[in-house]
């Protein structure tokens, strides 16, 4: 099997306006690779929600997207506060976002559930005070 294609991005945690730029670029890259619109949309939305989360909660981080012949893998890594209770965080509607974030259209407690919904697998590796790594896969 050929080597996976890897796209790497640094996500700026200081700038809400630019949040989503990495997801936009990934969408373009996947289009160029000729993946189906449905797959591209699922990858884009899951990554976008993750990117927004990194900006809102974790002062940014990194995003790596790997494309193999079998799947697209998205790895989002931050050094934010971590998630104390993952089960609670996965519930639709649960959010720790501030009113400011809600006024910007996010923080409805749908981010993580959306990421799980749009992907075939999602793993959350989180340590309070250290950071969070989320690995998602969309099968081709």
């Amino acid at each position, binding site marked *: 099997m050929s080597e996976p294609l890897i796209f790497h991005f640094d996500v700026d945690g200081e700038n809400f306006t630019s949040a*989503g730029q990495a997801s*936009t670029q990934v969408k373009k890259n996947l289009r160029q690779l000729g993946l189906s619109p449905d797959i591209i949309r699922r990858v884009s*939305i899951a990554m*976008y929600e993750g990117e927004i989360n990194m900006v809102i909660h974790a002062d940014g981080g990194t995003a790596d997207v790997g494309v193999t012949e079998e799947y697209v893998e998205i790895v989002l890594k931050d050094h934010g506060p971590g998630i104390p209770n993952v089960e609670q965080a996965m519930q639709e509607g649960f959010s720790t976002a501030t009113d400011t974030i809600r006024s910007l*259209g996010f923080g409805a407690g749908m981010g993580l559930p959306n990421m799980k919904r*749009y992907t075939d697998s999602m793993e959350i590796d989180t340590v309070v005070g250290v950071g969070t790594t989320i690995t998602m896969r969309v099968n081709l």
Partner: protein
Amino acid sequence: MKISMIRDLLDAEVLCSEESLDHEVYSACGSDMMSDVLAYVKDQAVLLTGLVNPQVIRTAEMMDMVCIVFVRSKRPTPAMVQMAEADGIVVMATSKRMYEACGMLYANGLIGTATHV
């Protein structure tokens, strides 16, 4: 429904991508919460919102939407309009409120699509 009909029904001003006004659309959603838009909509085409920030455009991009209607006389910034134009998304603004705008489009055949993927 053609996007041009949305413009006519809502008495809206088109701000970019006028070349796509003949595009046919079949569904729409109205929300100020982008996470809800990302969660509940499938095969959507039109977003009605009163929220004004660049993430509205990004959300529409991610969802492959083709038209954004800003309600309640909200105006997107020039940078937002540029972003939308680069992706071929029609942006328009209307003075109508969300409830009225959605109701007019629904009554004329543009249904909602409140389903999970």
